[in-house]
């Protein structure tokens, strides 16, 4: 037993879905257990931080780190696990790109605190108490981990060996990675993406693609799309075109547009900007030709006007990992 390589999994600013994805390996979890000493995972096991601190550096073979870096505690655990692990993997979208917690970067920390602790309709906080890193009470000083100004990705606070994208990563892709490691297969160069492709979701999507010309955009609830044609061609904003392949085009398969959870494809720095580029290419310009210049802008705005929040939509999973990383002022 003691000879098996150690495997750990940790959650930082996360939802717990990544642990569920691991458990969704179903019976293959027994193979994981046979190959590894699965020794740390606060969601599933009772090992404590002090047990990790007591290990020699590099004692853990692989750490799957899910969750973004929101607090000082998240960062402390990221650095601790980096030190104790030979291979640190950013597991899931939160860790790789910032994901849903990272959408908070469109707001300032003060706005968030105000919304959550003061203005929220279901909050009764007559003392207007907002969490602080240190609070003096009669018995001494109470401490909480600092809440940072911005959400960061794992790679923005420590050195990361590999990335497994997805919200959460698909179990079959987790298995691809785990079984390759068990078999001793060579891994890609450091910094590479595991458990996904290099291209876009469209590559693995079976829907019929034709010349894209869109005259009107719909929100998902406004349209029951046809089962055959590309969703984007039908006017739904499907982000498959700016999202890394690997999931098997799960969402378009069940008539839902891709929302982008596998992050940007290889070589793309900014998923939102890529969606702007893609949508700019497929809006039907037929009837804008020959119009006055101001009228052209008005027409374009009218087509785009039916969707209320492009930034939230295009950066749903990737804001902290994007070029600008969040609100700048």
């Amino acid at each position: 037993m003691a000879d098996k390589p150690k495997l750990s999994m940790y959650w930082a600013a996360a939802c717990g879905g990544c642990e569920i994805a691991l458990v969704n390996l179903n019976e293959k979890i027994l193979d994981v257990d046979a190959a590894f000493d699965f020794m740390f995972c606060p969601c599933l096991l009772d090992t404590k931080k002090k047990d990790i601190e007591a290990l020699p550096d590099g004692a853990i073979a692989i750490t799957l780190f899910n969750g973004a870096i929101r607090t000082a505690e998240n960062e402390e655990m990221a650095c601790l696990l980096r030190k104790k692990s030979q291979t640190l993997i950013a597991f899931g979208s939160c860790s790789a790109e910032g994901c849903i917690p990272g959408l908070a970067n469109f707001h300032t920390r003060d706005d968030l605190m105000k919304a959550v602790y003061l203005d929220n309709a279901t909050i009764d906080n007559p003392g207007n108490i907002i969490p602080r890193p240190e609070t003096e009470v009669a018995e001494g000083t109470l401490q909480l981990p600092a809440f940072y100004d911005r959400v960061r990705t794992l790679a923005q606070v420590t050195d990361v060996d590999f990335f497994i994208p997805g919200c959460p990563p698909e179990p079959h892709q987790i298995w691809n990675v785990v079984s390759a490691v068990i078999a001793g297969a060579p891994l890609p160069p450091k910094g590479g993406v595991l458990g996904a492709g290099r291209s876009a979701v469209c590559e693995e999507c079976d829907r019929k693609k034709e010349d894209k010309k869109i005259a009107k955009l719909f929100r998902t609830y406004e349209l029951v799309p046809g089962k055959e044609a590309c969703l984007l061609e039908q006017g739904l904003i499907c982000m498959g075109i700016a999202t890394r392949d690997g999931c098997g085009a799960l969402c378009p398969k069940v008539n839902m547009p891709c929302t982008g959870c596998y992050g940007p494809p290889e070589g793309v720095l900014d998923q939102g900007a890529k969606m702007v580029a893609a949508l700019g290419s497929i809006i039907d310009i037929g009837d804008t030709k020959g119009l006055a210049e101001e009228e052209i802008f008005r027409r374009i705005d009218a087509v785009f006007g039916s969707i209320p929040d492009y930034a939230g939509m295009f950066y749903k999973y990737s804001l902290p990992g994007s070029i600008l990383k969040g609100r700048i002022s």
Partner: protein
Amino acid sequence: MTADKTVRGDTAFEPKIIGFLCNWCSYAGADKAGTAQSPYPPNVNVIRVMCSGRIDPQFVMKAFEQGADGVIILACHPGDCHYKEGNYRAAQRYRLLLQLLEPFGIERERCRFDFVSAGEGDKFVQVITEMVETVRALGPLIIPA
């Protein structure tokens, strides 16, 4: 680059603006202004692209991230695009990009799109001058570390 940035309203602030100009019309327009020796503010660093349709919105994001206080995109007039409709594509991307910039806290005036033909040296001077003054009034764009 951020070292020379000063507070909003400080007259010492010289905006740094990145200009993406299409090769066939707007760059030639800028050239015309140059040949005519028309004075215009030196704040715009021009990047020549073969077509305004080549301007990936990532370039604009990158320019802001790298310290630009403003970005200007100049394209051929509608109907004049060397590649038929690159400028329409650029206009569409620009209008959508504006919607992304706002939640990032980047005022829409920091990103301008206009049409300048090869013959419009004067319009080039006018557009550049306006842009520099607009961005000067907005103050520097400071990207957190």
